C-alpha cells in the first residue's frame, strides 16, 4: 500500500505586477534575522542608493522569532512602508 500522505493543494496565487523602474520608489529590505543578512542588505542598500538616488530605502528587521507562519504579523508593516521588497537571506 502507498505510504505517502495526500497533499491538499493550496490556493495558487499570482505575484503582483512589477514596477517599470525603481526611480522614486520605496524599497523595503526585509532582514530575516539570519546571521549576516543585515550586512548583505546594507551593502545592497548602498548600491540601490547609488544607482537610484531618488529611491527611498527602508531597512526592516523582521522580528527574528517570527517565522514564515507568523507572516500576517509582520508583512502588513512591510507593505505599509514601501512599493517593493527584497527579502533575505534565506537558508
Amino acid at each position, binding site marked *: 500500500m502507498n505510504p505517502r*500522505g*495526500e497533499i491538499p493543494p493550496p490556493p495558487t496565487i499570482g505575484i503582483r*505586477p512589477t514596477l517599470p523602474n525603481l526611480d522614486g520608489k520605496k524599497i523595503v529590505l526585509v532582514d530575516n534575522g539570519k546571521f549576516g543578512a543585515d550586512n*548583505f542588505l546594507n551593502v545592497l542598500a548602498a548600491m540601490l542608493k547609488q544607482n537610484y538616488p531618488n529611491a527611498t530605502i527602508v531597512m526592516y528587521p523582521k522580528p527574528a522569532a517570527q517565522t514564515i507562519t507568523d507572516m500576517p504579523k509582520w508583512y502588513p508593516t512591510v507593505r505599509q512602508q514601501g512599493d517593493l521588497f527584497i527579502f533575505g537571506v534565506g537558508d
Partner: protein
Amino acid sequence: MPGVYLTTTEFLDDAKSAAKDRGMPGLRMVALPANTYYRARASKEELLPIATKAFPAIVDDLVRPLTADEAHPRQAQKQSEAANIKVTGKDYPDAYRKVNDLFLDNHWSDGLPIVPPTAKLVNTMLAATSRSAQEVLGQAAPKQGTATVEKIAINAVMAGAKPEYFPVILAAMDGFLDKHYDLTHVQASTGSFTPIVVISGPLGKELGFNSGIGMLGHGFRANSTVGRALRLALLNIGQTWPAVNDMALTGRLESYTFFTFAEDNEKSPWEPYAVSLGYKPEQSTVTVATVGNPIVLGGGAVAPWTGQGVIDQVVARISTGAGFNWFHSQTIDLVLIPDCAVDLASAGYSRKSLQQYLYEKSRIPFEKLSPATVQLTQEAIADGRIRPENAQIFKDNLKPGGRVPIVQTADDFHIFVAGGSPGYDLLFTYPGPNWANQTKLIGDISPTKAGQ
C-alpha cells in the same frame, strides 16, 4: 507588493519547493553562491563582490514584466496517489528486492530494508486500534500531507512494528501533529534537531521497551520500531527528503529511530511522569519533544557523582545566557537515572520541588543577557508568545538587577526517570520557536492485556 526573495544556491530548490507548497510558484528568487556567501557574510567588504554580481538579477526581478504564468498561475491540482502499488517478481526474493528498490527510488523509505506493507499486514495493524482507518489526525509539515490512521499503519508495517505498538505510534503522531508542536522545524531545519519519544506508565514495560542500560541503542524491537515507524510516517506523510526540503546539514541524530525509550516507573522514587500531568496510574502516555544534542551528566561507571551534583551541573549548563535567544518558549527535558532520582528523593526532592528548584536556580541575571536576547524577550511578551499569565515576572526582571527565567514556568522542566545502574543522566535543551513538548494519552486499552 512586488518583491524578490534572496537565498543561496544550496537552498534554491528548497525555497522553490516551499513557495510552491504555499501557493506562490511564481515568487521570484535570486540565489547567492553558497560556497562564498556563508564565509563572507560577516564582512560587508567581502560581501561587496557577491552583491555586485547579484545586483543586476535582483533589479531585473523587480522590474521585469510578469509572464502570463506568473500573473495567473494555474491552480495546483490534488496530487493523485495510488492507494495500492503492485510489484511482481519471479520469486519472493526478487519481488522483495523490487519493493525495496521502488520505495527507496521514490523517497518512500529511509535507506534500510522495509517490510512490504501489504494490505493484509496493514489490516492487522489497523485491528490493534479502535480508531477508524480514515480518521485524520492532522496535516504533516512541511508539505501538509494528510495523516490518516491508515497511512500511519502502512508506515508502521514498513518499520517492522508489532500491532500492539500501534496505539503508541498513533498517540505519538497525535503529539507531532498537535497545532502547538513545531513540526516544520524538526522536519526541515538546518540544525540537527530530532525528537525524543518517551513512554510513561505501565505500557512501557508491558510492551518491552528498554528503559535501562542501552535504552537509546539498538536491540529492542519496541524502541527501534516505534521510533522507526514515526520516522517513516513523518518522512512519507510530511514528504521530506535530505537536501531537498529536510536541510539538516549533518543529518539528524538518531535519524532512523529517534530517541525512543520508556520511563522506568518501577525504580523511580517518584510518580510516573504521566501521573505528574494528571493522568491515572493505570494510564500510559507518550511524550514527543524536539531536542538538540544530548548533554551527558553524572559519572556512569567511571566517576563518582551525587544527585545534587548532577542538578548543579544542569543549572550550570542552562543558565549561561548563551544560545538561548528564544528562551521565552524553551523547554528542558531531563532524563535522570533511577539511582540519581532516588538520591535526590532521599534528599527531599519531589519531581515538583525539583522543577521549582531548577526554575529558580537557572534564572539569568539581566546583565548577562545580550541586547538581542532582551529584544527578543520583549517581542515575545508583546506578541503573546510569553503567555500573558507568565509575562509579569519577565517584565519585572528585564532590567538591571533582575533575574530572568529561562522557561515560562517550572512545568517547562520535563523530568523523566530512565537509564541504567550505573548510568548517565541526559539533559536535552531546545531553543525552539514553539512549545515543543506534547504528551498524549495512549488511548486504546493495552492490547497485550486484552489478549490480542
